[in-house]
């Protein structure tokens, strides 16, 4: 599938962007990159500071989206559509991880009646 999409992108079989939208001012790119970095940073901080595992998971999603946004921004910057193709796959994987996280959280909640990450500290030195 990757190959197919990339092939389409590079063969030019994917629709071209409208001429007017192709060149983006570097200021906008920089802003997008800044936001992606912020998303990443907020995700990390949230991941470290929140106890609720669902929130923690949402924070990892935030990080993923930060990376995805950076992909899109760079894709625009280089006028290369493959970065955006990557984003589709990032979303898919994020969904798969979400399904996994959901299952895991349900399992844990049944065991402990809490979603706090603090509750899981048996293993260790």
């Amino acid at each position, binding site marked *: 599938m990757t190959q197919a999409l990339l092939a389409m992108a590079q063969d030019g079989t994917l629709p071209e962007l409208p001429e007017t939208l192709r060149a983006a001012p570097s200021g906008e790119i920089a802003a997008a990159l800044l936001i*992606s970095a912020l998303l990443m940073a907020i995700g990390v901080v949230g991941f470290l500071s929140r106890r609720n595992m669902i929130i923690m998971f949402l924070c990892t999603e935030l990080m993923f989206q930060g990376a995805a946004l950076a992909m899109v921004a760079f894709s625009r910057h280089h006028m*290369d559509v493959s970065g955006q193709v*990557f984003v589709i796959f990032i979303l898919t994987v994020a969904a798969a991880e979400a399904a996994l996280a959901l299952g895991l959280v349900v399992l844990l909640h049944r065991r402990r009646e809490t979603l706090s990450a603090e509750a899981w500290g048996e*293993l260790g030195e």
Partner: protein
Amino acid sequence: MMGMESMGPRLGLLAPEMVLFAGAVLVSVIGLSRSAGMRRSVPLWCIVALVAAAFVSVETWTQERASAAQLLFPSMGSFVKPMLALVGVLLVLPGIGAIDRGVEGAIASGRQAFDALRVMRGEHYAFALFSIAGAMLLCGASDLIWLFLALELVSLPTYIMVALGRGSRKAQEAAVKYFFLGALSTALFLYGFALIYGSTGTLQIAGIRDAFAAQAAGPGIDMTGLAGLCLAILGLCFKITAVPMHFYAPDVYEGAAVHVSAFLAFVPKVAGFVALAVLLGTAGWTGHALIAADGVRVAYTGLPEPVAAVLWMSAVLTMTLGNVGALMQRSIKRTLAYSSVSHSGYMMIGLIVGAPAGINALFFYLLCYGIMTTASFAALAALERSGEEVDSFDDIAGLRVRHPAVAWMLAISAVSLVGIPPMVGFFGKLALFMAAFESGQVALVAIAVVNSAVSAWYYLRLAIVPLVAPPSARSATVVSAPSRWPAICAVVCGVGSVIVPLAASRLLQASERASEGYGAGSAVAGDESGPKGSGGLYTSRLTRP
């Protein structure tokens, strides 16, 4: 472009993965059968799929196909795929009899009706196959998307395997830690990929290599690219349990079922190292040259200094912290986890040395490590104490009296892990250290040798406690696991650690194919794989301050 034309050879190279994929589908369906006999045959089909994949990977690999696929390491799969499949066969065995033990027992005794939602054997083995297939896919990665997806295909199944491998709370805690920290690391290398893309303007591995070469020929790789490489490396360090991403390993290995720990110690590690080799290959090691897209011959001057330094520090810290951590563990699984960390440290030497010698030695070491570590985990899986896994040194004290074979296999694997001749571990280390020595990494070799000596302390304890120590009250109640297969696996691996060295020369030669075709002259001069041809698009506009 690389669409239609290169799809054919590439599909041919993907045959083993397809076999595994089909095997996974088959196994997951058989695992849901109402017949207990069918369900019991799941590991068998799993092994059949793996053996078939090994066979197919050897049979379908040809030089022409490999070079037509335009990979950075065209021949890597020729060694790594059979290795994964064959060690995978060994990794299947320790889980037999352990997965679904309670449920199957209840069904057999009639206390419970068959419920497809409650049996997990099919899933477990299907996930194992998916994970191995993911690691194989990495060998054929031609762009970052592929790399990312394959890495996730390796990881996601292992998260579930940890959670479901055994019903205890420890396993669930291990799953929590593994999953969340794994997601964090995924996010990190994903961001690293984004930055690399930003720096080079392409997701194609070959294109990235050309772009980096062009940058290196000019002012040097720009900061975006460097930061991206470092982030990606650090994110991947999670997969290979390297500093600073190794902290989860002891907890997860301890908490997970022992056969899952064995799996974690090998498959994700191979995946991580393959991915790291590919990533570092884009920046290039000393001594290789390539023809850049504009026809200029560019000689690599070695990894960019910050990247090399990060790898160097990480390797040293990984082997040292791993060994120091293992010294005083009371849990065997934690000891093995730390040992796994330290072995990653040794193997990182191979990454620093680079293609060809370092990468070859690295993959040979992975094979040796897979055999040795599977032996020790399988030996643990062959025992149990009042239905629980055996995990403390007390449990295995004087094991020779009641379980001589397992005790000897544990001892053999431990001695092999130290790297004492003539065991397989010695040859792994020999090849690795020799490669490092040749390339001038004397300090690194010295540190690794000192580390090996330190590691002898705890490995020999693993050998001496079962063989020499008097049996303890705890070890007297240790019994064999219900299935014989873990013990058989331990014996096969243990005997393998003694016998495989007999074929050391041949295996080394086989591993020497791994990095064949990398570097000199192999580049993609003037062909279409550089997405936008030559030009200013390669250089990022995020220039240095």
